């Protein structure tokens, strides 16, 4: 089981957290101006790197706050 460091609560078990996908995906400024394909890309397409990946996590069973973390997807190690 992973150990994830919540910036507010400290290191906790993975079971206390929920995953929020890739970090830094900005909401389109003008959603109505997007074509179906661009909207589909925004909704469904994410990076899938082997290595460092910036992610959103929420401490769902703790302080319920969202934060960003960088995880190595090959080793599952969280980078400080």
């Amino acid at each position: 089981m992973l150990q994830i460091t919540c910036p507010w609560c400290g290191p906790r078990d993975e079971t206390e957290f929920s995953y929020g996908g890739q970090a830094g995906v900005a909401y389109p400024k003008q959603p109505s101006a997007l074509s179906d394909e661009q909207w589909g890309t925004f909704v469904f397409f994410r990076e899938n790197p082997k290595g460092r990946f910036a992610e959103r996590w929420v401490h769902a069973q703790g302080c319920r706050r969202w934060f960003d973390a960088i995880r190595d997807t090959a080793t599952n190690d969280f980078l400080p």
Partner: protein
Amino acid sequence: MRFTFAGTEYEGRDGETLAAALVRHGVRGGFASIGLGRPRGVFGWADEEPNALVQIGPKPLQRATLVELTDGLVAEPLKGKGRIFEASDDTWYDARYVHCETLVIGGGAAGVAAAEAGGGRVIVLEASPHSALTSDSTQGLRVLTRTTAVGLYDGNYVVAVERDRRVWHIRAKRIVIATGAVERPIAFPNNDRPGVMLASAACRYDLGGARVVVYTTNDSTLAFPDAVATVDARSGRRVVDTLGAERLEGVVLDDGSTIACDVLAVSGGWNPSLNLWSHRGGKVQWDDKIAAFIPTGELDGVEVVGSAAGAGLPDVSPVWLTGGDETVTFLDLERDADLAELRRGIGAGLRRAEHLKRFTLIGTASDQGKTSGVIAMGAAAEIIGVPLADLGTSSFRPPFVPVSFSTLAGRNRGELFDPKRETPMHAWHVAHGAIFEDVGQ
């Protein structure tokens, strides 16, 4: 102390295992193999045992080498498979969650040294009932005997089982794997005859006045007491067959001569126990000098010490193929898998350890191939004609030793499995004859 095995009562001693008592009483066979029903006997010393499986009350598939005798114990030999007990198991199971700075897995010499050097709170897991260390809360040292680490997961999270009763969930900053090495046998025709044992087991059992022949590939058997003969594979000698029916009566050598004996102590080399290292994604590489897989590369917060890292293991000149009747040359005793099956798999075009394992089932029994995996790979490499390292390795998966479902379930069973929650008005509703609907949690 009295105990019953297969309907016969025996006298037992305090601190003895069931297997040790059976061997001391001269019971060489007593077990049967799963597929062919061939007579089998105690083969190993601890969790590597492939033959001596017993049912004790509600508990199936207990290894006789790990069962400590208690007065009135009743054990029934199992033919490779257990039975689900129909009555409910009234044993109490439990779970604990702990943290520590240093977790030492294995309480041998290397483990003790690591525990004494380790900083912060130290936990030592020792599978046997005895440890050179004792818990000392003032020093932050906790020693758990009869406790086996069964899995090592991401984030240095270890699951260990104490006496098959209590599950320990341990999160450690640093993990020292000091699980030692397990001896492996040599494959030759009729190598499953009751009385053929691992040398490391045979030299620890009380064999009475048994005549012992040692068959070895390395120097670890030098100190063997009272052997009538030693067949040293390094000088070209081979054991090519065994004699006897229900129990071993003699061995046949490569020059056609026979030696009468009751026990054949076999040492085909030593395999470092790298299961936990592999659970966490650690890599292994083949070492020709000691003829075994040793850990390579690094894992964050995990180190391997002592003979688990290959340190201090003897040089080995392995013997993979002997010739003779391959249908009775057993590679995996618990699966009854023989060399002929392995050859059939290679004939079908399989070239990788993972594929051969699935084709022959070698290493898939409840002993997880502790004695069979490497000898099967060695034989396969020689048949195909490639270096052993070219076959790849099959990775280990938890659990390291079998764990019963009831242990994992712990207290979460019966009423506590899915506790009913009732409103404060429940009693009033019941009193007024309400009809209830189960709406879950």
